[in-house]
């Protein structure tokens, strides 16, 4: 967690001052009437993890600021998604504010119209601090939050970029340098392999479904696009096949035995115990890696961009947002909460603790915020570098879970020696009708 030097009071004053002065240069505009909805109680449904927990931890500050009481529940990701869908379908959700996983739920929420359009609120100076503008969110964040009419139905909150974690000590021992391309990475991994001592060049997710977040980064680097102009899925083309071959080369030749069943937890264990030299996964794992109680490689890990493929260099991005239910009766109070959640203060805390990366450029580019980051400088560089080359890591469709299961199972099967082209074709044929049905419904 972040160790924050300023006191709570000074932070609050800072937030208010920032709102009043405004970064965008509208000092004459009306102030946000933070206290207008004092006495209201709102319910927030959040996902367990550094982001949801951060909001819960500092909820009393929001209450001090606005007089609004927040009842928040923090539920593990998968269960939260189920609960959200079931309650929103019922038309009477028990919560006003909802934490959304864009990479899984964007299309589903949009099509169902579950979240309110925030455009009107965002233009209202009584409700929105002048520094909160649509332009302040990075392009990826806007891509996630806006629907096809350009309306914002949620506020982009935190993004997870895929980066390369590498063990500098193991690299130095074998005289290997940091790879810049996928081919170099495979060669480096093979040089770093030392099975006699239980050390492997690479590790990553192989488990069905979980593996898709890693595989898609390969897919993007090999020039893959998820959908064509007509909305057909394109995961059986030559790019997918070549990407799978590279993924297989690393995962079969240079990864710990049993990688086909690895999720992030097993992969991270291999890295933090010094048994794997490279790992590609989300930026959010730096805190446990740099925690001496959980890791044997504190200070030895380098953070870098995912190496370039033949068709480009990308970082697969996955994002969280926060929005308000269309069915909520306390929309203004809920909006103040959402605004606070993505505020500079809370965003700075998120970044500084390594728990996530805010979508707002004004936070990322702020020198004082950057200085407070507890993670190594290289980590922050990798984050900022990834932001520039980020691309959505999963297709924006309704049946994301089916996509991850079906194509993920095909990719896992190739780790046991099945032919990538055949498996991907099979998965494609299985998935296509599901996608078509979901869009028709």
């Amino acid at each position, binding site marked *: 967690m972040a160790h924050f030097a300023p006191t709570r009071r000074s932070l609050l004053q800072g937030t208010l001052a920032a709102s009043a002065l405004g970064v965008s240069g509208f000092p004459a505009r009306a102030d946000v009437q933070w206290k207008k909805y004092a006495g209201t109680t709102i319910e927030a449904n959040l996902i367990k993890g550094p982001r949801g927990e951060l909001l819960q931890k500092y909820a009393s500050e929001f209450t001090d600021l606005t007089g609004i009481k927040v009842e928040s529940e923090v539920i593990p990701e998968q269960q939260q998604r189920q609960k959200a*869908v079931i309650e929103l379908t019922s038309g009477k959700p028990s919560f006003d504010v909802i934490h959304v996983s864009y990479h899984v739920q964007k299309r589903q929420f949009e099509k169902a119209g579950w979240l309110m359009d925030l455009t009107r609120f965002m233009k209202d100076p009584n409700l929105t601090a002048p520094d909160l503008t649509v332009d302040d969110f990075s392009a990826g964040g806007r891509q996630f939050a806006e629907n096809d009419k350009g309306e914002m139905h949620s506020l982009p909150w935190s993004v997870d970029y895929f980066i390369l974690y590498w063990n500098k000590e193991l690299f130095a021992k074998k005289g290997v340098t940091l790879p810049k391309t996928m081919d170099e990475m495979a060669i480096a991994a093979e040089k770093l392999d030392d099975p006699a001592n239980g050390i492997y060049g690479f590790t990553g997710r192989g488990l*069905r479904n979980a593996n898709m977040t890693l595989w898609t980064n390969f897919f993007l680097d090999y020039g893959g696009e998820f959908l064509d102009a007509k909305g057909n899925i394109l995961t059986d083309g030559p790019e997918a096949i070549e990407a799978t071959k590279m993924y297989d080369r690393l995962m079969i030749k240079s990864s*710990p035995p*049993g990688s*086909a*069943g690895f999720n992030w937890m097993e992969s991270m264990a291999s890295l933090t*115990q010094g*048994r794997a030299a490279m790992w590609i996964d989300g930026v959010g794992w730096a805190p446990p890696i740099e925690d001496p109680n959980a890791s044997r490689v504190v200070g030895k890990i380098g953070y870098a961009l995912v190496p370039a493929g033949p068709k480009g260099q990308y970082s697969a991005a996955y994002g969280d947002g926060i929005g308000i239910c269309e069915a909520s009766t306390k929309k203004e109070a809920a909006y103040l909460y959402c605004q606070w959640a993505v505020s500079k203060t809370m965003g700075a805390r998120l970044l500084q603790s390594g728990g996530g990366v805010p979508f707002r450029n004004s936070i990322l580019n702020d020198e004082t915020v950057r200085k407070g980051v507890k993670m190594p400088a290289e980590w922050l560089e990798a984050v900022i570098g990834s932001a520039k080359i980020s691309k959505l890591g999963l297709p924006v469709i309704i049946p994301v879970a*089916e996509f991850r299961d079906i194509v993920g199972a095909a990719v896992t099967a190739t780790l046991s020696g099945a032919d990538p082209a055949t498996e991907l074709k099979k998965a494609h044929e299985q998935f296509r009708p599901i996608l078509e049905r979901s869009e028709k419904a």
Partner: protein
Amino acid sequence: MSTIAEPAEITSRGEPQREWRPPSYWPFVLPALVVVLAVIIFPWAYTIWMSLHEWKVGSPPTFVGLANYIRLPSDTRFVESVWHTLVYTALSVALPLLLGTLAAVVFHAKFPMRGFLRGLFILPMMATPVAIALVWTMMFHPQLGILNYLLSLVGLPPQLWVFHPATVIPSLVMVETWQWTPLVMLIVLGGLAAIPAEPYESAQIDGATRWQVFRYISLPLIMPFLFIAAMIRMIDAVKSFDIIFAITQGGPGSASETINLYLYSVAFVYYDVGYASAIVVVFFALIVALAGALLRLRQTSHWNDAGGVA
């Protein structure tokens, strides 16, 4: 009330035929009936009704007749999951039964610290499945897990445990066995305690070996208890979810995906309620069939006189 005025008809048995009246005890049955209707009959009827619809959460249901059922046999993931469920169940009934009986025989004998050791032995049963599943996940880790370390101590090559399709089900059964052997032991121990001492004494006089005593006296007499244990284990194993979900989520690939896990994905991850309901109905039929088979086995095996006691 016209029958009262007419002369009562005489039936062949010579009794007057009265108008049917509700039995006097019906008010006592009613509460139970309402509860059964509400919590058993209604959900079932509703599930069957849902299974006849194409119904995705968020869109209105459309009636499709038996289409969901027709889809099942051609759904390879479903067919494989049935197979996984049967293998998983067979193993996780047989192993705890065998080891539990053995443990019960051991703990039935009198030796110092018996009570303490018995208590120790039943600890796994008290643990939360999800918590122990997470512990086992790290114990199975091919590089860092303690299991491969233990194998290396005795010179055996490392295994992939739950990380390989071929070994994943036996490895999961190992966890299940570790957790549920104590239950079988408790049940069998109860059975052993209920056997009178006389048959053993006469067997001793006749010069029976320990094996003969177990095979011809203990085993036939604890058979009913073993059946109960097998039944409980079977029902538990068929619907096992927590351990598998927490350790492998059905993976690698779908190598350990049982009906229950697949069902969960279809219903709560893909939100395909209609199809999931069809799977539930088939799954329920399977459990009933298995339980029926076991009961039938019990009726036809004459366990009470099997082997002929001394």
